[in-house]
């Protein structure tokens, strides 16, 4: 190639030295691609210059009970089914509006359209005054009250408890220790049960390497920034792939709308109360007491075998926060005769939010619940 200039090669690459016929199909697709590039630039400029706050959580709801920071919301339906659903998400980490992100992309909207009266427990955002709140308090004081209020509000005699992520082991503890509250069905969505199989968090929080007492004693509550750092470390390439996908789909207004809502949620981390975190890491991650049957709450032993109602367990194939094997473990531990496990495509979040969830997860959950409600 010698002294040939780079520009000359580009010139020949672009035009060729001979006329090459370009098919109408290829020509049309180039035109489409150029249009997409224009839309990308337009949407990018709009996002930078005039960012619009996405309107999340639009399904109508009613606050029916509050206890300290926690709230119980009712989402009314046509009530095709008698048994209401009490949804228990994670405490701390993130806000629960991910379950009602946007119209048409909302788990709550799906469930109410299917005819389930849906009750969402929003644990709230805790402050330093809540540092004494323990996980045991949540299981023995908050959850029973929320369940009673759900029954009271719906007028039903039984309820379905649906736990997601950390909400699932918490709910499992509650269902196993409160036989006086009639739980008709229990659903675990991406909630770890066997903490010996929880992947990276399990390794990092191993008691040989992580001194939870010291951590809590020095910091008090686990600040939201610390929670963010932990989750970012879990998947360091996440931001890169998120931004790459955003650029690729930036021409698509619907994608941009969904991205903005999800991005708002994904960057809103919530702190853990000090004593809650101590017990969560110490008893669950470090000693796996729930799965081993060594946990006691409110003076009662927590034996998962005491859960005898129908149980549905949903794991996500690419879940690195609650790997499927740690979720599936519930099936072997409960005393139920009617139990089922499904492993669906997606990760910890895409299992319950987004297009994939609307196709794979939500209909499976509502279909399983329908004949049992």
């Amino acid at each position, binding site marked *: *190639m010698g002294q040939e200039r*780079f520009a000359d*090669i*580009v010139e*020949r*690459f672009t035009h*060729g*030295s*001979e006329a*090459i*016929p*370009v098919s109408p199909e*290829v020509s049309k*697709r*180039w035109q*489409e*691609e150029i249009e997409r590039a224009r839309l990308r630039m337009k949407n990018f400029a709009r996002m930078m210059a005039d960012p619009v706050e996405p309107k999340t959580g639009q399904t109508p709801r009613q606050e029916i009970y509050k*206890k*300290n920071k926690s709230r119980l919301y009712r989402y009314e339906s046509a009530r095709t089914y008698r048994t209401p659903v009490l949804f228990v998400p994670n405490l701390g980490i993130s806000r629960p509006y991910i379950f009602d992100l946007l119209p048409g992309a909302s788990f709550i909207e799906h469930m109410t359209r299917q005819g389930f009266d849906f009750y969402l427990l929003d644990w709230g955002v805790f*402050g*330093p*005054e*809540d540092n*004494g709140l323990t996980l045991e308090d949540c299981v023995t*004081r908050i959850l029973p*009250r929320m369940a009673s209020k759900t029954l009271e509000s719906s007028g039903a005699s039984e309820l379905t408890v649906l736990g997601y992520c950390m909400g699932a082991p918490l709910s499992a503890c509650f269902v196993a220790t409160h036989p006086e509250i009639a739980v008709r069905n229990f659903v675990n969505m991406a909630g770890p049960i066997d903490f010996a199989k929880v*992947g*990276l968090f399990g*390794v*990092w929080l*191993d008691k*040989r*390497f*992580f*001194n939870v007492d*010291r*951590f809590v004693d*020095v*910091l008090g509550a686990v600040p939201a920034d610390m929670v963010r750092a932990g989750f970012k*470390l879990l*998947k*360091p*390439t996440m931001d*890169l*792939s998120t931004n*790459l996908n955003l650029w*690729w789909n930036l021409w698509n207004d619907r994608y941009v709308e969904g991205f903005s809502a999800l991005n708002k949620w994904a960057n809103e981390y919530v702190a853990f109360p000090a004593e809650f975190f101590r017990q969560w890491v110490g008893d669950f991650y470090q000693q796996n007491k729930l799965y081993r049957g060594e946990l006691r709450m409110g003076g009662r032993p927590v034996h998962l075998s005491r859960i005898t109602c129908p149980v549905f367990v949903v794991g996500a194939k690419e879940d*690195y926060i609650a790997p499927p094997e740690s979720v599936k473990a519930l099936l072997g531990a409960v005393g139920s005769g009617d139990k089922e496990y499904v492993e669906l495509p997606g990760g910890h979040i895409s299992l319950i939010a987004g297009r994939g969830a609307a196709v794979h997860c939500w209909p499976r959950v509502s279909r399983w619940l329908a004949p049992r409600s």
Partner: protein
Amino acid sequence: MDSSAATQQLFDLWKRQIEEGTKAWARMIGEVPGAAAVDPTAFWRPLMDQGITAWSRMLSQGPASPELLTQWKQFLDQWIEAWSKALGQAMGTEAFAQALGKYLDQWLVTQGPARKAGEQAMESILQSLGLPSRAQVTDVARQLVELEERVERLEDGIAALLKRADGK
């Protein structure tokens, strides 16, 4: 010279530029006295080569089509996924967990006294201004939470008594 040859030349030139650039970076890093020369590109180079070869092959087969962009996106996705897997494997080791634990311990050693000093300084400022300290406000909030809890227990007790009375 036909267009496929031009395409090949373009990519050869591009590849050479990338290689020259990375060599220069590697030389620069390796120039630290006493340090062994490291190749920061060793991990992603095979992937990069693979992607460029695939792209070059596609271009040489006919006129450029928008499919190339899709291929490029797929290549980047695979590249990120490969990084993610490699990092995941490295971070899933006990050695990493140990290093992370040590780092956190050291951070807490400095963070503890710094936080305490900060809180004390803030308390004395607020005190001198005649304002309640953060600890005092937190105490009041805590008392409210406890009060709410007591009221709830009383409500529960009354409800239980009423239920019992109704039963009789």
